[in-house]
């Protein structure tokens, strides 16, 4: 709907006011207080809501003050396909006219006009939404109630998926909810009816089960009664048979009793005879015992006597043998001792010679050591004096070779004089006498000047030239070197040096041979030990000869001493063997003598004892015979044996008679029959008692009509089960339907809330920042605002913010429904809570909204809306 013009007259304090709204966008109606701004906003609602004849207090409230005229409202508007002018005068000369110019001309008055206007409005406008979007003074911070706004829902549904919900669907949902609540609470728990139905069903099942059990029990009792009756019949028959059987057994048992008594009597007599026989036997055995004892004692005494004689002879023989053995042993002992002494002497002799030899060897070894030590000491002295070692000798020899070399070079390089003897002659060469034989040739090298003189004949001086001079100097140098080397070594010539070197080497050999001599001669001894032993032997060897016995004579040498020692030891061994043999024989003879001696003593003691026993036994036998003779005892025994045989025959006869009656079998059968009869009686009593009980139960329960009760209970159960199943089915279907529909409804709501949220956030970001978000409930209310990740519930926001959000919310709704005709957004002096900064931004919101829907703003503060962009401004005065 779009407002074109609105006029009011005689409206509260307003005599006349008229607003022509802008063709689109914002119409800003400004004016001071009481100029009628609020009245204009209110008037549109009253025009459509009330008949001109209405006396409603809202109509009474607009009656003009101090004037007796009816308030008038006239609206020119377009809605959907319609363009119309709608006029009403209330209270005074009420009148309603509706002039429709499009789509076809209509003129209506009175109630018809009212209803037609209402119809047009209903057809083209969501009146509830329109009213919800109007902001009246003081309402600015409250959100509109948009639940059940069909046109908004439709628009949102369309925006969400193009499938707008039918308005009747909410009604259907309520009906479904109502059906659901018949079975379940709002929290989803079952109502009492369902629980009661279930309980009734359970009870019915229990009742059926109870009766079924009672019937089973009854059937069991019926079977049992028949069974018991059969059993009682059988028991009765059995009892009769058992009674007869028991009577027969009783008669047999009486006969058996008589025979048993006779047998007992015979056995008593037999027992008495047997006792008499036993006594006679015992007396006879006692007599025989006495006789036997006397005989036995006499025999034992005789045996021991004989044994004593034998043992004495053996003892004497043993004594004799012991004496011989002792004699032999003494001789052996004497011989052993002699051999012992001889062996000791011969060993000492041998040791003497041995020690003497050892003494000499030690003395020789000590002498060799001493000699080596002496040589070494001398060598040490030589070494201390003589420093010509091999190196020094080599230096000298090298110098010597140098001298020889220089001389040779001189002789080679210097002039030489060849002397050849023509005859034997003597001459002097450089003052040396030289003899030259005939034909002998000698060459003299002239190093510098040489003088040859043949005494008396000739004196020749030969002088070498310049080249020989150098060679001569070399020779001199070499000689000096040789001289130096010899001087250093402390010798005068190389030959001395060579000798000295040999001496030194010999001295060193002596030093070295000392250690070797000590090692070879000391062996495992030290020099001191060697010396000590030597001194010990030196003393002991001569002493032995002094203290040795004269006989036998001393052996002449070691070898004979050794032979004598061996001989003495062999003799000693032999005598010891003999001695040991004799000693063993002596011990054996002594043992034999001791054994026989012991036996002999024992025989003597036993013989005394047996003599006493023999006397006692003879005394006892004599006394017994004096009391009863042996013959009397024999007669008594014979009589007793005969009596026993007689009684045994009697017993056997009685036993045969009794056995013929088979008493064990008869007794067992009688006992069994008695027990069986007793058992049968017990069984009969028990069966009878049980039968009585069963019959009593049958009497009680058999006539209860259990069969029909069961059928009744079963029928009731079937009906209850059917009812319960039906109830459950209905409840389940209601639940299924409700839950499915609720889910679909919620899903649809969530879907259609999305465009609204988007629109609000789009507008809101003009005022707030880009992080601005809102959460919209399914009831189409802003639940919270989120900025910079901070979420604040709507009711906790400041008044100004709530006012801004409410206005943005309404603007968004208007924009959404504007495409389908929409509804003008009427704002009565809103944004009173908004600060100047936000006012400018809210102006932008309104300007944006105004591009899609008509906005009418009533205000007494025009500056508040200075930033709403293009607007039609209407001033009320």
């Amino acid at each position, binding site marked *: 709907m779009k407002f074109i013009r609105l006029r009011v007259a005689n409206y509260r304090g307003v005599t006349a006011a008229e607003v022509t709204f802008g063709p689109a966008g914002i119409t800003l109606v400004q004016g001071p207080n009481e100029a009628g701004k609020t009245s204009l906003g209110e008037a549109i609602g009253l025009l459509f809501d009330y008949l001109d004849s209405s006396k409603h207090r809202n109509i009474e409230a607009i009656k003009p003050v101090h004037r007796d005229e009816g308030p008038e409202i006239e609206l020119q508007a377009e809605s959907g396909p319609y363009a119309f002018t709608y006029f009403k005068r209330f209270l005074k000369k009420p009148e309603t006219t509706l002039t429709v110019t499009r789509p076809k001309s209509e003129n209506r008055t009175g109630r018809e006009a009212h209803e037609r206007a209402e119809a047009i409005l209903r057809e083209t406008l969501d009146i509830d939404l329109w009213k919800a979007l109007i902001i009246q003074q003081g309402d600015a911070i409250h959100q509109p109630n948009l639940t059940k706004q069909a046109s908004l829902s439709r628009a949102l549904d369309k925006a969400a998926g193009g499938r707008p919900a039918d308005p009747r669907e909410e009604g259907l949902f309520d009906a479904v909810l109502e059906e659901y609540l018949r079975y379940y609470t709002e929290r989803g728990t079952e109502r009492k009816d369902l629980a009661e139905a279930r309980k009734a069903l359970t009870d019915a099942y229990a009742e059926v089960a109870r009766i079924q059990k009672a019937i089973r029990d009854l059937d069991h009792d*019926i079977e049992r009664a028949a069974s018991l009756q059969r059993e009682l019949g059988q028991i009765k028959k059995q009892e009769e048979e058992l009674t007869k059987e028991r009577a027969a057994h009783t008669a047999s048992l009486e006969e058996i009793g008589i025979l048993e008594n006779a047998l007992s009597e015979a056995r008593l007599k037999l027992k008495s005879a047997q006792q008499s026989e036993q006594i006679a036997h015992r007396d006879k055995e006692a007599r025989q015992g006495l006789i036997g004892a006397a005989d036995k004692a006499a025999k034992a005494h005789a045996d021991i006597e004989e044994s004593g004689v034998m043992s004495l002879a053996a003892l004497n023989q043993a004594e004799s043998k012991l004496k011989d053995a002792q004699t032999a042993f003494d001789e052996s002992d004497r011989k052993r001792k002699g051999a012992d002494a001889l062996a000791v002497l011969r060993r000492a002799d041998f040791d003497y010679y041995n020690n003497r030899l050892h003494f000499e060897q030690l003395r020789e070894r000590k002498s060799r050591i001493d000699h080596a030590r002496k040589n070494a000491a001398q060598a040490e002295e030589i070494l201390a004096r003589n420093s010509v070692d091999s190196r020094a000798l080599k230096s000298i020899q090298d110098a010597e070779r140098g001298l020889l070399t220089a001389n040779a070079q001189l002789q080679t390089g210097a002039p030489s004089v060849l002397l050849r003897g023509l005859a034997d002659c003597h001459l002097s060469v450089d003052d040396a006498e030289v003899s030259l034989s005939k034909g002998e040739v000698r060459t003299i090298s002239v190093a510098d000047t040489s003088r040859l003189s043949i005494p008396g004949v000739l004196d020749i001086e030969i002088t070498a030239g310049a080249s020989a001079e150098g060679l001569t100097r070399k020779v001199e140098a070499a000689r000096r070197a040789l001289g130096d080397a010899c001087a250093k070594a402390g010798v005068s010539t190389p030959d001395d040096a060579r000798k000295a070197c040999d001496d030194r080497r010999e001295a060193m050999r002596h030093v070295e041979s000392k250690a070797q001599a000590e090692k070879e001669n000391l062996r495992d001894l030290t020099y001191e030990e060697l010396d000590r032993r030597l001194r010990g032997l030196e003393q002991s060897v001569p002493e032995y000869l002094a203290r040795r016995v004269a006989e036998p004579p001393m052996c002449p040498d070691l070898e004979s001493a050794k032979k004598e020692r061996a001989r003495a030891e062999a003799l000693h061994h032999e005598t010891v063997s003999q001695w040991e043999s004799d000693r063993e024989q002596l011990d054996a003879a002594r043992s034999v003598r001791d054994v026989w001696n012991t036996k002999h003593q024992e025989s003597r003691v036993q013989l005394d004892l047996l003599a006493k026993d023999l006397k006692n036994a003879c005394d006892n036998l004599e006394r017994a015979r004096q009391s009863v003779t042996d013959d009397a005892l024999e007669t008594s025994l014979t009589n007793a044996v005969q009596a026993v045989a007689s009684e045994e025959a009697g017993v056997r006869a009685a036993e045969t008679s009794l056995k013929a009656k088979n008493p064990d079998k008869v007794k067992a059968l009688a006992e069994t029959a008695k027990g069986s009869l007793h058992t049968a009686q017990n069984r009969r009593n028990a069966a009878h008692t049980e039968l009585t009980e069963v019959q009593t139960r049958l009497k009680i329960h058999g006539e209860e009509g259990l069969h029909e009760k069961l059928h009744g209970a079963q029928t009731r159960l079937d009906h209850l089960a059917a009812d319960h199943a039906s109830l459950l089915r209905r409840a389940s279907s209601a639940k299924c339907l409700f839950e499915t529909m609720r889910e679909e409804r919620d899903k649809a709501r969530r879907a259609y809330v999305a465009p609204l949220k988007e629109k609000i956030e789009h507008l809101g970001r003009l005022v707030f920042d880009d992080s601005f978000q809102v959460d919209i409930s399914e009831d189409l209310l802003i639940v919270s605002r989120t900025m910079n990740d901070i979420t604040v519930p709507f009711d906790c926001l400041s008044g100004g913010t709530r006012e801004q959000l409410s206005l943005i919310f309404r603007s968004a709704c208007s924009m959404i429904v504007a495409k389908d005709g929409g509804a003008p957004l009427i704002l009565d002096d809103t944004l009173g809570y908004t600060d100047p900064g936000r006012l400018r931004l809210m102006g932008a919101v309104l300007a944006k909204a105004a591009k899609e829907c008509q906005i009418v703003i009533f205000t007494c503060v025009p500056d508040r809306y200075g930033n709403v962009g293009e607007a039609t401004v209407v001033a009320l005065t």
Partner: protein
Amino acid sequence: MIRFLHTSDWQLGMTRHFLSEGAQERYSQARFDAIRTMGRIAKEEQCRFVLVCGDAFESNQVDRKTVARAMEALKEVSVPVFILPGNHDPLNAASVYRSSTFIERKPAHVQVVENAAPIRVAAEVELVGAPWLSKRPATNPLEDAISALGPADGVSRICLAHGAVDTLTPDRESAGIISVAMLEQAIIEGKIHFAALGDRHSLTKVGDSGRIWYSGTPESTDFRETQSGYIHIVEIGDGTVASKGIQIGQWRFIERERVDLNTADDVEALRKSLEEIENKDRTVVRLSLVGSLTLTLSGALQNHILAANDVFGAFDVRADDLLVLPDHTDFANLGFSGFADGTVQRLRSKISEGRDEGTVAREALILMLRLARETV
């Protein structure tokens, strides 16, 4: 010549769980009424006595009221009545025939056949009964009873027995089976002249002699009975026998299997066919439905079933094989486009998945359809 009324299987005290309380009472009363009817017919047909061949009572444990009402009804029978205990009411320790109510209220002309001893009911007629003494005898009591009999000299001997005969029973080895050959042999030997049997609920001739008969139950008890609701009038002459059945039952059991329902016409045809059934309050109907219906037609069918439930003695519908599938026509007129439409689509999807959830979803959809029609 002697004429008697042969009946059996009164099954007094029988209940049927599918019957509602009122119908059950009518059903029970019909059985007592049948006794009175028998009394009247016995008199009209000049019967000398009435033979009840077993199972007069449904159980030994029937309610004492049932016994009392039976005795009251029997008082109105003017001829002697001989009752043979059967397998449902054997003469055991808890027999109804030994109950205090029976003993105290039994009319003098009513006699329980307690053993196989011949009962001379007239100068020329002798009865021989084979009562059941327990529910599960090793052999049918008739065998011993026949064995003990000598030839009937000068009397018409009528045998009362209860149990299935071997020629009509698949399980010939089961206990209590009566050998037809044995009976026929006894007839040939002249031991008996007529065998009045009970146990089978349909009036049935056994063998070809015309001397062995089941009387059937006087009131139907189940759907599968073919000749129930009859009594049997027998006339034995000198070497002849004649019999006839007279229908006295008031109750009918109608079973219709595989009633195919797919269209509105099918549903309407069913409604009409039900409507045409007479004596509905004493009629038990069982329908097995097949086919597939829309929700709308299913709703209509449910209404017909509810109406039938109100008028028939019992109305048992088995619709496990009847598919109820919503189609577009069910919701076409409701014009749903929003979440209600979404709900319809989801429930239809669940139905197509089958199982228990599918069944619940279908019922939910039917509920939704009903609520939508009530709301819109």
